[in-house]
């Protein structure tokens, strides 16, 4: 497939597959930065990154609900679903790559690009062509990559909203999915907002709107409808050293000062891969165990998204166990690399099924 304008239901399903991949692709970078922070330090930064990461998990779940609602089949276990970092984002943003790296001004710079407000600086910048990326994700970037490249996640979701409305207006029977596949609020506990079951036009558009607003705010505002600061401006607080408060305008926060200690961070190996750690070492074994656990976790979440929503509860338990595994990795020195610590590599087997 290519990401061209949505004109058919199949196009919409392709976009929603890409949306799941996109939402997921942001999570390993956010978590790597988050857990590189020394426990008990950088409380402001820790909570800013954590809130955003958890909201991406909500967005992933909402994308799965939308895909299920329109009769698609979520698949987070297929080869290439988890990108090899550094990676371009799956919506085709062409001018930056995302890395797995420690909390640093560079990492926050990348996070600001991930969450940048919707509008491209000019129409020429909006739909970009670019060479085939190194870290291409097969489902989204086919050979001869000639699809649309969105300037921002916001523009990507604007096309999804437009496509849903367009197909609805054309009389396409969109919401043919099995309603029992929806993840409903009683299964989604304290995870960045309330999950929306998608069953019709209104709920589908509400889901898109929730994702877009948490990411970038209401049009013309740094806050969303619930009065929550959007992701871009949350991260910006870390570079400006000051919190936003009600009444503030973009780029000029006037709230309390915010302290960042860029040195209270474990010196993680950037974009580590499994072969960076010597075979036979405890670090290698732990990194492999994490990857295997992550693959199993994705598989479990995928089962939750494909007919057994109750499995989301035990999957969340697995997620917290993975968190503790990451904590052990990042506190260990990387063997043979003085001054550098180990890191989760998120290397997936070819297929995790």
């Amino acid at each position, binding site marked *: 497939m290519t990401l061209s304008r949505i004109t058919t239901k199949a196009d919409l399903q392709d976009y929603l597959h890409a949306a799941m991949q996109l939402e997921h692709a942001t999570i390993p970078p956010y978590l790597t930065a988050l857990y590189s922070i020394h426990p008990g330090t950088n409380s402001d930064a820790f909570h800013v990154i954590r809130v955003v990461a958890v909201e991406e998990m909500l967005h992933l779940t909402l994308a799965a609900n939308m895909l299920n609602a329109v009769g698609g089949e979520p698949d987070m276990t297929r080869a290439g679903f988890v990108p090899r970092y550094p990676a371009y984002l799956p919506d085709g943003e062409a001018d930056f790559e995302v890395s797995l790296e420690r909390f640093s001004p560079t990492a926050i710079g990348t996070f600001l690009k991930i969450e940048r407000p919707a509008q491209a600086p000019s129409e020429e910048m909006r739909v970009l062509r670019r060479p085939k990326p190194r870290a291409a994700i097969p489902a989204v970037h086919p050979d001869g990559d000639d699809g649309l490249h969105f300037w921002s996640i916001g523009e990507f979701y604007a096309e999804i909203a437009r496509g849903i409305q367009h197909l609805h207006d054309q009389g396409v029977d969109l919401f043919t999915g099995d309603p029992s596949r929806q993840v409903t609020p009683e299964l989604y506990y304290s995870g960045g907002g309330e999950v929306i079951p998608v069953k019709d036009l209104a709920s589908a558009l509400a889901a898109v709107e929730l994702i877009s607003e948490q990411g970038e705010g209401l049009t013309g505002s740094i806050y969303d409808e619930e009065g929550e600061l959007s992701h871009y401006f949350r991260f910006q607080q870390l570079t400006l050293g000051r919190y936003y408060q009600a009444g503030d305008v973009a780029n000029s926060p006037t709230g309390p000062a915010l302290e960042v200690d860029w040195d209270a961070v474990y010196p993680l190996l950037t974009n580590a891969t499994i072969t960076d750690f010597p075979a036979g070492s405890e670090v290698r074994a732990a990194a492999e165990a994490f990857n295997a656990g992550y693959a199993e976790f994705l598989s479990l979440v995928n089962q939750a998204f494909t007919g057994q929503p109750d499995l989301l509860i035990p999957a969340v338990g697995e997620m917290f166990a993975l968190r503790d595994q990451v904590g052990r990795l990042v*506190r260990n020195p990387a063997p043979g690399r003085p001054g550098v610590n180990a890191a989760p590599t998120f290397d997936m087997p070819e297929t995790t099924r």
Partner: protein
Amino acid sequence: MSAQTRLEPFLAFSSRVTAFTVFELQGTGQAAAYLETVVGVVGEALLGDLLSIDEAIQREADGDAAVRDRLLRARIFSDERLGPVARHIIKLWYLGTWYALPKDWHEVFGSVEDDVTFVVSAAAYAEGLVWPAIGANPPGAKGPGYGTWAMPPKIPAF
């Protein structure tokens, strides 16, 4: 000896007496804080003696676990001066708390000003080895997720 060069033998000894690997001990993020705690209470000289004897035991045991355990018991844990300290190092790793040495120990080896019972830090409590050992999370920290209390604990193999 600097704290950095002390860390490796301290971790090696700690691993042998806690049954957790050096990776797992480092994974608590508390290694440097615990070493500092022990040195701060009992002093460089005593810890140096303990670690030197431990290293000599390793050489002598030459990989034979049964010999090693026997020598550890005989030369460290049965030693009037080193035994209580070694036991309190184990408790430190498991509970994140330094326990004041017994009164008897002080009567023989003199009082140590900083030897009081204290939790090393808030993080030390959460990182105690007792929690993974029993497959539980530290109450109030490392939340394991809604509903996981209904599932059996995951206890690691030792």
